[in-house]
């Protein structure tokens, strides 16, 4: 499905990604974990064409998208739920969700998906007409996730979706991710909550300072000593 090879990214002088390669096979949930500043978000952003890549290739369904523009990548079916929520503050919740489905034409399906999002996050339905900018941090996070679901992607990339969410909702989030995956969407997930991320993942990568240092199935990594020590706080 998605394949990254030898990806290098620089921010000015900072070498943020140092030749990483990873793969998201069909119908799977892949997790990406690592400390702050390891380059996880940068990886997702470079897939979306939001940061200039100096070297490497990215292909999606056999198509080279390394040099594609963001809007085309979205058109191909990759969607990012970005770090820091990035909801449109002057638009209402309802409008934010509509924009999530910007490229879709199937009116009926969109309606269904909207209903689904409201079921997943009832809070959003309560506040349907509130401007997103005035929502609480967690509510915005829910909206951001809901909005990316609305795009009906083939590959959904979530950057720390549980950030700022209450424990109850965090649990929900992981079951929601499962549900989305069951609906046939591939997931690439970044999470600080490494335990939950590894539990849900079919396969996972560990990043450190711009390199992928470890990879394996979720279970393997959960059992790995180094992972335990560094990310699970045990």
């Amino acid at each position, binding site marked *: 499905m998605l394949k990254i090879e030898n990806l290098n990214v620089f921010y000015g002088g900072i070498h943020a990604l140092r030749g990483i390669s990873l793969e998201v096979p069909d119908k799977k949930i892949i997790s990406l*974990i690592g*400390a*702050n*500043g390891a380059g996880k978000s940068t990886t997702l952003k470079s897939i979306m064409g939001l940061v200039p890549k100096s070297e490497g290739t990215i292909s999606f369904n056999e198509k080279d998208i390394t040099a594609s523009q963001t809007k085309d990548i979205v058109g191909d079916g990759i969607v990012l739920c970005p770090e*820091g929520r990035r909801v449109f503050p002057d638009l209402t919740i309802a409008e934010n969700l509509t924009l999530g489905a910007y490229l879709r034409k199937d009116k009926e399906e969109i309606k269904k998906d909207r209903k689904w999002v409201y079921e997943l996050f009832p*809070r959003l339905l309560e*506040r349907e007409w*509130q401007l997103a900018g*005035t*929502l*609480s*941090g*967690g*509510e915005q*996070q*829910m909206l951001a996730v809901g909005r990316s679901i609305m795009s009906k992607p083939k590959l959904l990339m979530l950057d*720390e979706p549980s*950030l*700022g*969410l*209450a*424990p*109850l*909702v*965090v*649990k929900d989030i992981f079951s929601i991710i499962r549900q989305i995956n069951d609906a046939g969407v591939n997931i690439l997930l970044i999470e*600080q*909550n*490494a*335990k939950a991320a590894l539990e849900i993942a079919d396969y996972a990568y560990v990043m450190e300072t711009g390199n992928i240092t470890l990879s394996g199935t979720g279970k393997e990594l959960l059992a790995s000593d180094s992972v335990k020590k*560094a*990310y*699970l*706080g045990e």
Partner: protein
Amino acid sequence: MSKQNLLRVSDATMQFGGVVALNNLNLEVNKGEIIGLIGPNGAGKTTAFNVITGVYSPTNGEISFDEEIIASNYPHGKMKALYSGQNAGKYTKSLVPTPDKITRKGIARTFQNIRLFKDLTVFENVLIAKHLNIKSNVFTATFMLNRKEEQQMREETMELLKILDLEKHKDDIASSLPYGKQRHLEIARALATKPKLLLLDEPAAGMNPQESDDLMNFVSQIRTDFDLSILTIEHHMQFVMGICDRIYVLDYGTLIAEGIPSEIQNNPKVIEAYLGVDE
């Protein structure tokens, strides 16, 4: 430690149009305590911080700090029926402070979405927070007649950076720091205002369990080092339960529980609204 009251929020209500973000909140912080404020998303926790720090003025209620009323608003007439609480309807001339005045009184805060002075260096970020205690006026400061004071501000800033382990980042631009360090810097900046009460809004957000543990130690460290009281919002239960003396739980703007961590953890209302049951 004798229990000496530091912050008291009485009957605070905050309404945004139809949304009642905070409903008749009563809350107290005593000297030296670390208090947790938890609750589901959109429960009104950040709003409570905003009301305490003067970002919003409450639609009803009163806030006192160190035995002094710092903000109050009791509408009367038609409005009074809308609010409940001891003093509801008692019309007082409302006292609307600006955030800077509150900070001067000794309450400092961090933000849920980090708000550093992004383009300035770490050192400058902290040094700016020293400005509120400046004694010289703009003329003496401009013509460098306050060298001693300036020198002292710089020294204190350096000391603070040392304590918070930010010394080696001193000349880095704030926005280039890794996320965790940015949180540290926000706390350092708040501490530089020499507060008696520190408000932390989700300090551990975006940290992994390991980092959040480190932060926990750090927070209890600064409590003793700086003789602080702390009120913190957090969704990481390990953090909250591990560090707080008492916890308040909000849901839909209303206080639904209050108590020591173990009580809260087992409070069915809290479990239902917020914690959920562990599988």
